């Protein structure tokens, strides 16, 4: 066990936690924005998957990972645009549309992959990383945290941006109002529809970028259904965070750390049943809920369609 605790191993664990956590963080931040505005974006996983596929195709086609990230974001927003059109503008049931979009994207990306890559399985070259001067030479944390893809830094910076949006912009206020009391936003001259559409698109962008990261930095390859439930975990993280972007970061890192810990235990040869070890992250969340859980702080109008002048829609 002790001989295993090399810098290389510790670095890999930490780096692995970050790699697993960043897609959750990106998607979770987006979802949080969407939830704040009152839209429960249950199709987040579909947006991630669409982002992953588009990023893969673009990065492969252009040979440039930046195009991949851009394409992933655009694809995530494309699915989000459908969500916005159907669930926000037309007011259709958010859960039905979210799940439908997820199923549709799963099917569509699997078909496209089947047609295009099922016999070649191309892989992407390693994604470029930026070493932060000074920090990247630290042992363990240097390579694991400070010599990473710029998207990692961007994701962390995004937390600050989200906090800033919430506290310092008119849009942040509109978001809160759209989720808590949409009619009040409307009466104040804001636009509920535009706010919600923007938030859903942002969620799509975050999820798409998360999917892109998963493909370009994480796996280096696309395979059907590869998001493997990450979207749902991001939704849970967004809910657990109760509106605070920093808590999404903590949650995503905790989740990544649990995954790394699982691997570490196995690699160290600690003979625990794999299934038991893999309960770790979920048990951690439940423990947090059971100990600290208090009254739900979800936006009052979460999940409800809004139309002006409908008295039942508050």
């Amino acid at each position, binding site marked *: 066990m002790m001989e295993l605790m090399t810098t290389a191993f510790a670095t890999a664990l930490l780096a692995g936690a970050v790699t697993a956590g960043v897609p959750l963080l990106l998607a979770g931040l987006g979802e949080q924005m969407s939830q704040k505005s009152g839209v429960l974006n249950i199709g987040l996983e579909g947006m991630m998957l669409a982002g992953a596929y588009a990023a893969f195709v673009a990065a492969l086609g252009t040979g440039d990972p930046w195009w991949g990230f851009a394409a992933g974001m655009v694809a995530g927003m494309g699915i989000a645009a459908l969500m916005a059109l159907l669930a926000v503008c037309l007011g259709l049931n958010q859960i039905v549309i979210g799940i439908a979009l997820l199923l549709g994207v799963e099917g569509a990306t699997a078909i496209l992959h089947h047609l295009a890559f099922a016999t070649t399985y191309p892989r992407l070259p390693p994604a470029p990383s930026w070493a932060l001067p000074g920090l990247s030479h630290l042992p363990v944390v240097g390579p694991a945290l400070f010599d990473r893809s710029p998207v990692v830094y961007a994701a962390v910076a995004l937390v600050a941006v989200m906090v800033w949006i919430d506290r310092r912009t008119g849009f942040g*206020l509109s978001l*809160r109002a759209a989720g808590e009391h949409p009619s009040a936003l409307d009466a104040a001259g804001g636009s509920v529809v535009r706010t919600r559409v923007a938030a859903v698109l942002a969620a799509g962008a975050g999820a798409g970028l998360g999917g892109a990261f998963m493909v370009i930095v994480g796996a280096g390859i696309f395979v059907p259904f590869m998001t493997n439930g990450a979207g749902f975990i991001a939704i849970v993280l967004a809910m657990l965070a109760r509106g605070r972007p920093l808590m999404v970061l903590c949650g995503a890192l905790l989740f990544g750390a649990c995954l790394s810990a699982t691997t570490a235990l196995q690699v160290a040869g600690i003979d625990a049943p794999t299934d038991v070890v893999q309960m770790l992250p979920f048990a951690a969340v439940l423990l947090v809920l059971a100990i600290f859980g208090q009254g739900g702080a979800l936006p009052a109008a979460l999940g409800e369609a809004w139309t002006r002048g409908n008295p039942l829609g508050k």
Partner: protein
Amino acid sequence: MTHPVYADATPLVSLAGIRKSYGAVRALDDVDVDFRAGEVHVLLGENGAGKSTLAAILAGVQQPDGGRILLDGTERRIASPRDAMDSGIGVVFQHAQLVPSLSLVDNIALGGPWWQTPQRARIAQRMREADARIGGTGRLDPFARAGALSLGERQRAQIVRALMRDSRLLVLDEPTSMLTPEAAADLVRLMRRLADDAARPLGIVFVTHRLDEALDCGDRITVLRGGRKAGELRPGADMTRDTARDTLLGMMFSGGLAQAPTIAASLPAASAAPVLEVQRLSIADADPPLRDVTLTVRAGEIVGIAGIDGNGQRELAEALAGQRPFDAGDILLCGASVRGLGVAARYKRGLRYASDDRHGEGTVSALSIGLNLLIKRIGDAPFWRGGMEKLAAVDAHARQAIEAFDIRAQGPRTLAGHLSGGNLQKVMLARELDGAARAIVFAKPTHGLDVRSAAACHARIRAAAAAGLAVVLISTDLDEIVALSQQIVVMAGGRIVARIPGGEGAHAAVGRAISRSEDLSAGGLQDRSFGEAS
């Protein structure tokens, strides 16, 4: 009291031939009306007459089906609330349009450019200025959460917001219905002052159910009936108040209005035994905490509980009904403690509570009238047998109530959510007065009801007392309390601060007690007056 009326200036807003239907309901039918700067224009009409719809059209919340809207003489469409705002129309809605979790400053910043940082300090400054302009005493904290404010404060904040946006026409939908008489009077004076402001005369549209308010401050009164304009009145020297009232009532209600007696029914016989006794009731876990409340209500007696909203009346009522546990003291019904009993058991023994929150807790909008009449005794025969609902029995019971209480609805299965406020109130009264009622608590029973519905409700309350029930009447409407109660207690800060016998002179005495208590409890989250800055 003379004031300029700019009768010949171009109206700020004119509506011509406005029509609006919801499905087959004609909420507004060919309505012509105009609103001018410097004029307080009152809209009157019974429940469902179309007043809120008119306000909603001015606010850009509803689009008319037909007719024209002229702003400063030119035809315009008010496509959205933002449009209304940009045209200088500010609306204070009946149900506060503030986000409870945001501060007042943020609520005012709402709707600003999305990329800009709200200038909170500047907004707060301007807010204080605007507040001062309407005679604020500086007690409206710009950084308080909207959800933590009293109804009056929220209304005030909305008026401030409208003024800060340079509104020229201020529309207020039933702003006084939730206020104490003093606060209402202050608000009425404020409207007057805003209209009379020589530098910036505002146009005011004021929706109310109170004829006296209308007559006190209205330069012009437009009456709506069934969506049509029933008439217009300019109260003036040429008309006595009584004639004006009669004229208005005649316009509002086709059948006219049976005048209700204004003095309390005769006192119960001295021998009548106490039915409801509240003994030194205390609840620590309340805001404000309830302390040592003691009350005795005899059969046939109406005890009024006056006071500003939020001084423990709701907690007392809930404790009586069994919705809220209490720490110390006791509640006796016909001499027996009800302490260990739940809502249903108390209901069964005849202790009843008609809540003031008709939509929020008193009824379930998704359920039929029939079931709403029974929600406090679910499972009881003959409406349920072996747990199975007996539709015929439920319907028959509901038909009786509809008949007896004159509930205007298609039938027993009409959903409560489709009823007007007045009819919803009747459903609740029917439920609480049903069967062997012995004591009943009415909380703000007539709030939001039109004159006729309110009178009918008052008649019900008197009838209940006359039938030997012990009645507790909680209200912020002093006229109502004085008109109905044989005994009046004033609540403040969770205690009873005064006990005043009903009848002659009660009105002034209770009013004094309330304003004294208000001074005492200043600093809490009570309703604050709209009084002039001193």
